[in-house]
């Protein structure tokens, strides 16, 4: 593979040199070569008893990505090379270990038509039926490998058609995917006046999935069809949207990834409604969603984040702080069976409402400098069912069962003057750990307080500090406290020290400390840090990524050209 790669690079070099020479001579545009490099390296400590960490075989590990694109007018081509050497970072899919060219494509686009061959990313609507995407922090790259056609005869109509298999590490899954999506702007199509009557759009999608089955269950569905319809309406300060999706009958898989031996097959569906109402510096956002057995893999026996077909994420507020990210909701969108094939979840239903208001300067609450207030509430329950035997269970399509998650939060942001800002957050969370993680209490209760302040010392020098605390009931880990201090010299330098202290239990108290620095210039950035990391999303120096639990030295660097 490395040999092949070197050859490819030499080709690129030659092309670029030729192009260079010619474009200088004739001053014609012969295209553009661009790309990016990212490498995340870790050197793990041998062991760390305090957090129960023992180093893996290869203590130095790295995940690296090189992407190169060539573009010339309507034509483009590119590849991505990934290396997980000498081994992959902890917490990422093991089958990625090694290195190779993982993605490549060639595409042509003109005003009305664009066609792609090779690996591509796509989603229909909000992704309820189909989404292929890359998220390096999560180790997800399920690009479709095949062909895509995009036709835009006018601004009123967009038609997409795709065919292919999804990428799985260095190969593809077995399941074949095909589908089409059409999106219409009704205003343009029927000449409806937008100012007067509002903006209407609608979309229709179809996706088919086929995977052969050679087991002993009669009439097992090898081909499954998915359909969806979505509409949105916007006028002045109100916008409404609705989407419904349906799947034909499919077999069921238990929580260990095994096919359940039954002749009863189930359909699936999703109903999603949303509304946004906004005034001057004020907005309300409402969302309701019901999901019945509707998250799918392209291959029946895929697990975790491998070969995901569609996208049905949790619809809750995404919080930013270390302690607000301990109990995060993970949507329960599929049938969940205990080994022995007892149904214990059939999906979820619930919703979220969020209110945001900026009180302007010189108003009663705003004071001299204004004030920003945000309130959020989310509630999700399991979809109810009677009985647990798969052959006789009754599943209700519109009835709430036990609570999965509840989240209430208030956030107040205030600039006291041009040099001093504060941010206060309070959260109350109810978390069904047993349902979401498969163990623990079904009633973990927590209260969180975060106080953050930013002090501008000089024009480009500033300090950001926060203190956080979480009071926890019904989780053996108990309470946590946390503090961070960050000193930045804009726009290039950043130094930080942080500690999360899990003190609320008698047998495994631990400090998750971290110290580091980052440097950014143009598109290049490097972050060096040492410490213990609890799994979660970490943002420092303005760059965010998800870090798995470990102790050691880490270096993250990225650059684009």
């Amino acid at each position, binding site marked *: 593979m490395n040999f092949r790669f070197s050859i490819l690079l030499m080709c690129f070099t030659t092309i670029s040199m030729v192009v260079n020479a010619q474009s200088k001579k004739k001053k014609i545009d012969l295209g553009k070569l661009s790309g990016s490099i990212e490498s995340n390296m870790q050197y793990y400590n041998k062991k760390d008893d305090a957090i129960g960490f023992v180093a893996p075989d290869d203590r130095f590990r790295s995940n690296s990505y090189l992407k190169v694109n060539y573009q010339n007018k309507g034509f483009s081509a590119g590849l991505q090379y990934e290396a997980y050497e000498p081994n992959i970072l902890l917490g990422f899919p093991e089958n990625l270990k090694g290195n190779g060219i993982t993605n490549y494509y060639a595409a042509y686009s003109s005003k009305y038509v664009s066609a792609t061959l090779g690996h591509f990313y796509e*989603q229909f609507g909000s992704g309820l039926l189909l989404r292929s995407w890359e998220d390096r922090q999560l180790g997800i790259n399920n690009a479709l490998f095949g062909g895509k056609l995009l036709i835009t005869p006018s601004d009123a109509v967009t038609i997409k058609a795709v065919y292919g298999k999804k990428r799985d590490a260095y190969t593809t899954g077995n399941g074949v995917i095909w589908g089409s999506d059409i999106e219409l702007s009704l205003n343009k199509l029927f000449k409806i006046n937008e100012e007067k009557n509002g903006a209407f759009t609608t979309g229709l999608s179809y996706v088919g999935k086929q995977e052969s089955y050679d087991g002993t269950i009669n009439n097992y569905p090898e081909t499954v069809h998915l359909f969806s319809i979505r509409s949105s309406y916007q006028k002045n300060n109100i916008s409404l949207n609705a989407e419904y999706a349906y799947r034909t009958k499919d077999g069921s898989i238990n929580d260990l990834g095994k096919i359940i031996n039954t002749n009863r097959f189930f359909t699936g569906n999703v109903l999603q409604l949303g509304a946004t109402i906004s005034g001057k510096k004020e907005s309300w956002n409402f969302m309701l969603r019901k999901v019945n057995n509707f998250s799918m893999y392209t291959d029946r026996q895929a697990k975790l984040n491998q070969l995901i077909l569609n996208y049905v994420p949790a619809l809750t507020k995404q919080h930013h702080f270390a302690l607000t990210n301990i109990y995060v909701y993970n949507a329960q969108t599929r049938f969940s069976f205990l080994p022995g094939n007892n149904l214990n979840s059939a999906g979820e239903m619930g919703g979220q409402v969020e209110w945001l208001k900026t009180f302007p300067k010189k108003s009663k609450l705003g004071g001299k400098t204004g004030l920003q207030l945000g309130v959020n509430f989310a509630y999700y329950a399991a979809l109810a069912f009677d009985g647990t035997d798969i052959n006789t269970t009754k599943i209700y399509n519109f009835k709430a069962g036990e609570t999965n998650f509840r989240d209430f939060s208030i956030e107040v942001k205030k600039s006291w003057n041009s040099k001093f800002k504060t941010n206060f957050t309070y959260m109350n969370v109810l978390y069904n750990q047993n349902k979401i993680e498969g163990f623990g209490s079904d009633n973990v209760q927590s209260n969180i307080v975060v106080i953050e302040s930013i002090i501008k010392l000089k024009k480009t020098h500033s300090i950001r500090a926060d203190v956080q605390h979480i009071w926890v009931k019904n989780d053996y880990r108990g309470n946590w406290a946390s503090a961070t201090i960050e000193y930045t010299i804009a726009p290039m330098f950043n130094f930080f020290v942080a500690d999360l202290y899990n003190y609320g239990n008698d047998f495994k108290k631990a400090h998750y400390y971290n110290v580091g620095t980052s440097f950014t210039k143009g598109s290049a950035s490097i972050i060096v840090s040492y410490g213990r990391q609890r799994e979660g999303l970490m943002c420092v120096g303005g760059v965010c990524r998800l870090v798995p639990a470990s102790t050691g030295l880490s270096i993250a660097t990225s650059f684009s050209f």
Partner: protein
Amino acid sequence: MFNFFKNIFLVLITILISNASFAQDNLNEIKLKNAKGKVVQMSDVMQSDKPVIISFWATWCSPCLRELDAVNEVYESWQEKLGVTLYAVCVDDARSKAKAVSLAKGKGWNYEILYDPNQDLKRVLNIINIPYTLVYHKGKLIYKHTGYSPGSEDVLFEKIQAAIL
């Protein structure tokens, strides 16, 4: 590992050799939509006679929100002094689009908000992490920066001022 670094080295050489001659960002047919579904051709945006800031953000990215809040406080005066327009390109997945609309309204942002739910523009520009800010003037890239820390907005202002005067 050695091979990987050797390869990276080769690429860097390639870039060094070739970079000078390659044309400005050719964004081809990349079209993004605003909240009302209006189509915006990105290559047109970048050709503008006035400076254009393109800032990539998402509802879950707290430094992005801090950056856009900070710029919003001085945006009116920037518009007067520099004639600048800021396009805030939201790379949230489609589920958060409605949230992004209401967030921008609730914060009173006066930017042009565009949506890149399939991350097509982000990918063409080879952006790895957000926040990521680019400034174009008459089709030329005059400044780019990744990350945000308080005061970065002042640096951004100075860079644009220096480039257009």
